[in-house]
């Protein structure tokens, strides 16, 4: 892009400023209504990589073997065990009332009070499968004692639906994904539980819909923090830097406009927003502000040279057009590559981010100088505020470092920091790092409930594997059932696995029952016929669907459910690896294992996809910088200079995440990936200013001095308030995720700014690139 073209565009924009602003306002008016209709909700299907084999297995079998949206309710007796009429009545009541919850899968409400939970008894009358505690709750002490004995002797109930110490019962409920809305589900379940809460029981509740419901409950608080941050930014900008209403209002106006445009376009394209996406909104607003502040700063500098207001606006637009567009296109490109990750949620985030960034090209780069051209007073920004002296002093220090021998010290220290951070970032975990949810604080009610569940039950997170037989009745074959048991045994050796169950366990338990409950017969039958008879005994008199949890009606496929103690990235990686290892060496004849469904399976799939995508994203982002910088400066070497801050901030961020126990997951990836371009404009502006200034002054020292003092001032003005604005999020957010991300963004911006002020000038002065020197 030639310099002349930038100036022509600038001249055109200022000349036609009324048309331009009218067009912008018209566009805003058109997009205002759609922008307010953007749906803020969590769409589960969007969170899954649909092409991944695990997710395909999950989608195929989730209705039988349990989806990813299971909610678990624990009713724990505050004293003694649960075998008291009052407590059992509560369990029965909750089990019954859950049928009224929106989007519930009625066939997947399971507890000791559910009709489908049966015990098989053998007696003189023959063998009968009867519901454990349905339709009535026992009320006499003898009946309660008998129920306790029955539960303890039922391996499919004891430890799974009743805790081993008999103090708690589990009620599990699944939902139809398409019909479920987290907030509504969460509210309705809490309303039901409220009617059963009293001093005799502690009722706690966990599960993905509940977690998302909790997150959505914090939406008003999060929005308040968002607006408070923006307001704080305005305040800081006014009081400490600009001392001008215009100088403060214009960046905020740019944010408002680009937000309306981006949300309006997203709404028209049918893209909805996630509650946690607000952090991305903050991230992008930060970038809008950066561009606008840069433009005001440049205007201030030009205007200080006794140029008219309109002339200063035109010249600042002309000089910032090239680096501004380069920054916006690079930034938007970096965000667009996130769409390479085959997860709809990330693709949506990527599209919204890119659209928003492209809006900045109009609001931040074009509109800001145009609005400045209408300023009524000539000396608006020419005020002597003590704080700006401080900035000038700091910038002088930067210049001194860049032009003296200290530059080698700074670059050497940077190299050392980079080396250490590369080493540290190798510990970055894909997936969650801690048990419970990383979205909430460890002492939150939800995470405390998760810990309590794991203490009393085998594991909160389920993962199912499917064994698909080739022919009908395959699941009656002893060798397949033995293989399933060996598989369960092999995987259970991992300490992260609390237990498992399958049709093989069911058959073994049935055989024990028909041999008078003698545990020496807890084994599968010797042949197809005897296993068939054992299954027949279980299903006789049962309702359709009762055996679905274990197998299909043709006994061709079986679901093997594992209870995991958590869904940390390392847990899932280890468990999946162990499963694959078994399957590789023990694949049975006439059947095949397929991994893996349930919350554990789909989270593992997401982790795998993120793992394969994240470095791809980084590489493509760098390629985009390579292309855009090469086109702009007509040399590939320019790209190298711009890559330095990006590589540096990425690596330091990864190292920070690794050392702070923040995992790379579906929630953090958008922030990390979208942050790649964050602050790249700082370096581009300084870099471009050096080039421009060298043409004017003829010496590199003078050019660097000018660039650091002028473009660098814009960097400080944009970066410093943003870092301060991240603090309310860090200290006040009820969501740990937002607090973590605020800190991450603050670090990212700081590194980008430091790179622009210390490293870029130092590098340029050491390497003296041809394409700058030749521009003289």
């Amino acid at each position, binding site marked *: 892009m030639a310099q002349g073209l930038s100036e022509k565009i600038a001249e055109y924009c200022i000349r036609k400023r009324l048309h331009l602003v009218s067009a912008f306002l018209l566009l805003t008016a058109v997009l205002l209504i759609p922008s307010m209709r953007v749906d803020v909700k969590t769409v589960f299907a969007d969170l899954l990589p649909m092409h991944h084999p695990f997710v395909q297995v999950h989608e195929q079998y989730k209705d039988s073997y349990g989806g990813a949206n299971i909610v678990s309710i624990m009713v724990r007796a505050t004293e003694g065990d649960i075998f008291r009429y009052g407590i059992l009545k509560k369990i029965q009541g909750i089990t019954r009332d859950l049928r009224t919850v929106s989007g519930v899968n009625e066939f997947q409400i399971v507890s000791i009070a559910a009709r489908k939970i049966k015990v098989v008894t053998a007696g003189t009358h023959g063998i009968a499968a009867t519901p454990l505690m349905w339709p009535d709750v026992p009320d006499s002490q003898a009946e309660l004692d008998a129920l306790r004995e029955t539960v303890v002797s039922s391996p499919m109930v004891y430890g799974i639906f009743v805790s081993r110490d008999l103090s708690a019962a589990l009620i599990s409920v699944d939902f139809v994904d398409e019909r479920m809305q987290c907030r509504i589900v969460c509210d309705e379940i809490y309303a039901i539980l409220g009617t059963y809460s009293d001093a005799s029981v502690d009722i706690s509740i966990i599960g993905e819909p509940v977690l998302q419901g909790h997150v959505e409950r914090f939406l008003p608080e999060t929005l308040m923090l968002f607006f408070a941050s923006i307001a704080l930014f305005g305040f800081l900008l006014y009081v400490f830097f600009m001392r001008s209403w215009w100088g403060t209002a214009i960046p905020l106006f740019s944010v408002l406009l680009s937000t309306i445009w981006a949300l309006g376009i997203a709404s028209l394209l049918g893209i909805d927003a996630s509650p946690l996406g607000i952090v991305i909104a903050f991230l992008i607003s930060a970038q809008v502000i950066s561009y606008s502040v840069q433009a005001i700063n440049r205007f201030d500098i030009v205007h200080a040279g006794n140029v008219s207001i309109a002339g200063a606006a035109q010249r600042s637009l002309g000089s910032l057009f090239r680096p501004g567009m380069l920054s916006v296109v690079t930034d938007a490109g970096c965000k667009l590559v996130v769409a390479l990750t085959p997860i709809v949620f990330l693709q949506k985030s990527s599209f919204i981010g890119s659209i928003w960034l492209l809006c900045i090209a109009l609001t931040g780069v074009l509109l800001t100088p145009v609005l400045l051209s209408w300023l009524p007073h000539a000396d608006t920004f020419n005020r002597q505020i003590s704080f700006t002296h401080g900035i000038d002093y700091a910038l002088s220090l930067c210049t001194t470092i860049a032009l003296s021998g200290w530059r080698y010290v700074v670059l050497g220290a940077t190299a050392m920091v980079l080396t250490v951070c590369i080493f540290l970032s190798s510990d970055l975990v894909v997936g969650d790092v801690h048990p419970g949810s990383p979205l909430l604080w460890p002492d939150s009610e939800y995470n405390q409930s998760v810990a309590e569940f794991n203490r009393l039950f085998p594991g909160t997170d389920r993962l199912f594997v499917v064994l698909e037989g080739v022919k009908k009745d395959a699941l009656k074959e002893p060798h397949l059932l033995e293989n399933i048991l060996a598989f369960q045994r092999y995987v259970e050796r991992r300490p992260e696995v609390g237990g498992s169950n399958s049709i093989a366990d069911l058959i073994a338990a049935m055989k024990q029952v028909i041999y008078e*409950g003698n545990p020496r017969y807890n*084994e599968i039958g*010797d042949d197809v016929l005897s296993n068939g008879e054992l299954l027949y005994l279980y299903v006789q008199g049962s309702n359709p669907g009762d055996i679905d949890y274990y197998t299909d009606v043709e006994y061709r496929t079986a679901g093997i459910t594992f209870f995991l103690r958590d869904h940390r990235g390392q847990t899932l990686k280890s468990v999946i690896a162990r499963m694959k290892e078994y399957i590789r060496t023990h694949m049975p004849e006439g059947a095949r294992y397929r991994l893996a469904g349930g919350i554990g399976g789909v989270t593992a799939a997401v982790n795998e996809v993120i793992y394969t995508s994240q470095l791809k994203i980084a590489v493509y982002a*760098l390629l985009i910088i390579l292309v855009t910088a090469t086109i702009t400066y007509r040399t590939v070497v320019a790209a190298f200079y711009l890559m330095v801050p990006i590589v540096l901030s990425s690596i330091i961020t990864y190292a920070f995440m690794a050392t702070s126990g923040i995992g790379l997951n579906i929630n953090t990836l958008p922030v990390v990936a979208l942050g790649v371009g964050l602050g790249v404009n700082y370096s581009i502006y300084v870099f471009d200013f050096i080039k421009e200034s060298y043409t004017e002054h003829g010496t590199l020292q003078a050019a660097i001095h000018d660039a650091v003092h002028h473009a660098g001032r814009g960097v400080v003005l944009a970066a410093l308030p943003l870092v301060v604005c991240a603090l309310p999020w860090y200290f006040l957010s009820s969501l740990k995720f937002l607090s973590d991300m605020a800190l991450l963004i603050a670090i990212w911006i700081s590194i980008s700014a430091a790179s622009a002020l210390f490293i870029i000038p130092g590098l340029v002065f050491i390497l003296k690139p041809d394409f700058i020197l030749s521009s003289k």
Partner: protein
Amino acid sequence: MKRKSLHSIEWVLFIVCAAALLLAGGISGRYAAETAVSDALPEPVLEPRDRIYGVAVVDDGTVWMAGSNGKVVRCVHDGGCMVQQTGTVRHLQDIAAWDARRAVAVGNNGLVIVTRDGGASWKKVSTPRSEISNKLFKVHVYPGGRAWAVGEMGMILRSDTWGETWQRRSDERDLAWNDILFTDTLRGWVVGEFGSIMQTVDGGMTWCAVPSPVQSSLTAIAFKDRLHGVIAGLSGTILTTIDGGLSWHKVSGQVTQEHLLGLAWDGAEWFSVGTGGVLVRGDSSGRQWRADRLSAEELLWHSDIAVTGARKYIVGGTQGTWEKGRWKLMEYN
């Protein structure tokens, strides 16, 4: 010259930087495609899914345990426990040992395995078989290399060769014998399904039925001397004799509803274990019995007891020791 060299440095830095990133991306992609390799986990001594049916202790304190999936664990006195390589995945129902080196284990489908070297190697030996079913439940050993085993289809087996060879000592019938006991070389008893009891007085050459006061299955038998013995069974059945097993009497009252599966005399008291973590204790007269739990938290079943001194090894759904009135789960290393 200087300018040229600086220009070269720029290019070298750029190429190295780009190549390193591309390489990192490539390696990472390949690594992820292969997924992680599972950490090698050594086979644990015992794991939650294990069911240990039989336990034996020899004089030097060596403990032998046998259970599901062909698992045999040998623990040395005040030392560690080790899983034995038995070469079978069939369930073992019981184990007995002559000493720290010689042991025999029996199990499903007529399985009998023996070791002569402290479990370093196990050998499968052949036994007489039924056409119908062949599960062996119990094995007991006696001095001189003698052993007795019982199981389904009326199976009573005898070995005089340290378990290397076996002969059938009963006719085939549709009844399972659950336990066998000899008080000397000639006098012995078997107990089994439907309250069945048989006695031999000629070293197992002939067996004759003894009247039983119950119909429920009997699972274990023990004698404290030549005259006084106890039989335990399902649904809390306890039978006693004071005349050397000529007549058996049901203990009055219902001590417990739980199935009783294992039984032992520790020199002072009778101990029986079974389902639901039950521990039934009887005084030396066999008249006073009381049921309790091994501990408030222990609710699983147990099928066998082995006594050594004041300590009792109890195995089943969980494994532990009972000593000085306290239940302690075994810790393995």
